[in-house]
């Protein structure tokens, strides 16, 4: 076991996959010589050479579209978008081709590719570098959307995504890249995409979140127990598509109360879908309306204001108390 940051754990997952499978390639801006702007591809150019770790021209649509073509030619590309805010250029290729080729060719051509993107706020980055727009991708049929929250699940989920037979949008919470370390096993580890984790069992209320928002949720859960004797059950979704309806439903049936937390804006955000599933599957178990702690429906503020605009433990605690005292 080694103590790794998420940045190192993601790097490890790619190194392992590339060593095992010669068809795995990395394409992205500054991923080779510069080892990625967040150093996620550190050492990989040296180890695997420029045919497999490709410093790509500044063209996100091309990174995605060329990856689609490489899939047809029998490769498994890992496409890196430097920031999710620039991934919109690639939207067209991902929606019109990556997500559809399996269906439209009735399985003759498939797109076993991963599109990695750092998302979210928290590192005081300049404009366009801090948005959480995962809901956009979750809306597109034919794509999986995976979002890790810590080093260990990041490594296991990235491995699962690389070897998944279908395209996976892999959203990396950049605020977590170096925020903390975790024990990561020596041997390659994988996780099933689409399974949520109950990271803490509890009886009074279910708090559902994912990605970077898991940090304030964990803090809030500690404080809720210590200060208010509220025993919260925490669910880390880990993937938005597939969404683990069973885990959500089982927990809400048990606690009867629920708060959903994410950085993304509220309108048509992931919480809306999560709450719809609760209504469909566990309405009669609810003791209180479900609350959302999310980004506001605003353009992401510049970094001097970003902290106040993000979900934090105070906002989560307020929402939980309202739900519990309803």
């Amino acid at each position: 076991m080694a103590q790794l940051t998420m940045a190192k754990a993601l790097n490890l997952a790619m190194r392992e996959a590339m060593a095992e499978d010669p068809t795995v390639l990395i394409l992205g801006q500054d991923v080779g010589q510069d080892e990625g702007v967040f150093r996620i591809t550190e050492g990989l150019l040296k180890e695997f050479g420029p045919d497999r770790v490709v410093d790509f021209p500044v063209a996100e649509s091309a990174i995605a579209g060329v990856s689609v073509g490489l899939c047809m030619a029998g490769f498994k590309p890992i496409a890196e978008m430097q920031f999710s805010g620039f991934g919109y250029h690639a939207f067209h290729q991902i929606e019109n081709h990556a997500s559809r080729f399996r269906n439209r060719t009735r399985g003759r051509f498939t797109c076993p590719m991963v599109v990695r993107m750092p998302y979210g706020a928290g590192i005081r980055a300049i404009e366009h570098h801090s948005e959480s727009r995962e809901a956009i991708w979750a809306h597109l049929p034919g794509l999986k959307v995976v979002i890790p929250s810590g080093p260990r699940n990041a490594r296991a989920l990235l491995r699962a995504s690389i070897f998944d037979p279908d395209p996976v949008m892999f959203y990396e919470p950049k605020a977590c890249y170096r925020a903390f370390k975790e024990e990561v096993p020596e041997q390659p580890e994988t996780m099933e995409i689409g399974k949520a984790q109950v990271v803490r069992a509890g009886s009074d209320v279910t708090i559902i979140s994912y990605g970077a928002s898991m940090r304030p949720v964990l803090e809030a859960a500690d404080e809720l127990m210590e200060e208010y004797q509220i025993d919260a059950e925490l669910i880390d979704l880990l993937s938005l598509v597939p969404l683990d309806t069973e885990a959500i439903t089982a927990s809400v049936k048990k606690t009867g109360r629920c708060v959903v937390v994410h950085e993304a804006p509220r309108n048509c955000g992931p919480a809306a879908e999560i709450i719809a599933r609760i209504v469909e599957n566990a309405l009669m178990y609810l003791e209180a309306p479900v609350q959302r702690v999310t980004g506001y429906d605003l353009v992401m503020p510049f970094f001097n204001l970003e902290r106040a605009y993000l979900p934090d433990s105070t906002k989560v605690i307020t929402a939980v108390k309202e739900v519990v005292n309803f």
Partner: protein
Amino acid sequence: MPRGKIELENYVESLSILDAEGNVDSSLEPKLEPQELRKILRAMLLARRYDERMLKLQRQGRIGTYGPALGQEAASLGPAYVLSKNDWLVPSFREPAAMLYRGWPMERLILWWGGNEIGARTPDGVRDTPICVPVASQCLYGAGIAWGCKLRHDGTVAVCFVGDGGTSEGDFHEAMNVAGAFNLPLVCIIQNNQWAISLPRKKQSAATTLAQKAISYGFNGMQVDGNDILAMITAAGEAVDRARRGGGPTIIEAVTYRLGVHTTADDPKKYRTEEEVEQWKCRDPLSRFYKYLKKRGVLDDKARDVMEEEIGAEITAAVENAEKYEPDILEPFHHCFETMPNYLEAQLGEFRAYLDAASGGEGGASGQDNPALYRQVH
């Protein structure tokens, strides 16, 4: 630094071999055996008659909207003719001549325009990608396929098609830039048919030629008479050979003309004159090639009549086969992902219940309420 003119390494050539009367420039005439020449004529004729039949089928409501390629047979067949089986052809949607030549069964193309995904399923043994609708987007996966060819070092190449309108898209630029930067074995054929629906070529770009765009990406371009099959075969053959030998990409601008509608959903009379169309009809790729073959004594009217009869029967059989096809109404659920996730299984169950009810089963309404659905369910 003094001021001066920068000499560029790359250049654009032009090529024309056969004139509108079927006279050949013998210094440029490719050496093709009579048997090959007859095969080429047949492939062009097949595409022409297929287009004509498809327009009729559309009018009869037997297929959906159709985008004919009338007049562009040489521009799309030439590049297909020079490819090997293991190469890749990456079409847009006006390349039936190329696709049929490469081995796509005609019924599959009919099925695509008839609204069936099976028409986008590349047949086994063929490497090509299916018809692509979003303009120029295919250039990027074409570049990706070419990249794969290069990584495998197996001497295969990719040919992608785009229209004159498509050259204004960002994806065209990104694909050509990547092809140049990585020296990919990609040949891009621009079918410049003069009209992007209603926008004429001169309003699409201020560039004198579309072929010259190659220069900005660091490789050569060629502007070819796209209605001259001999010129298209020669130009594409050279470009494909160069790509195969590691010499990198080429842009070939095939100057042609869309004799028909953009699709059956538009009326070209709104934006172009009949005189213009008539002028281009005089430069029809099929008639000029036929004149050439007659002059060379490769074919006479009688042999052509026999060919026409065979083609007519082939098309009729393809239409019959296509119309026998019954889509599986549940199939889309099975091809979204390799393994169906729980949420889709649940939606499939919901859909099945709806179908059962609609077809009169399980206490639902009578199937006569919805005969089309009833037919599909049973």
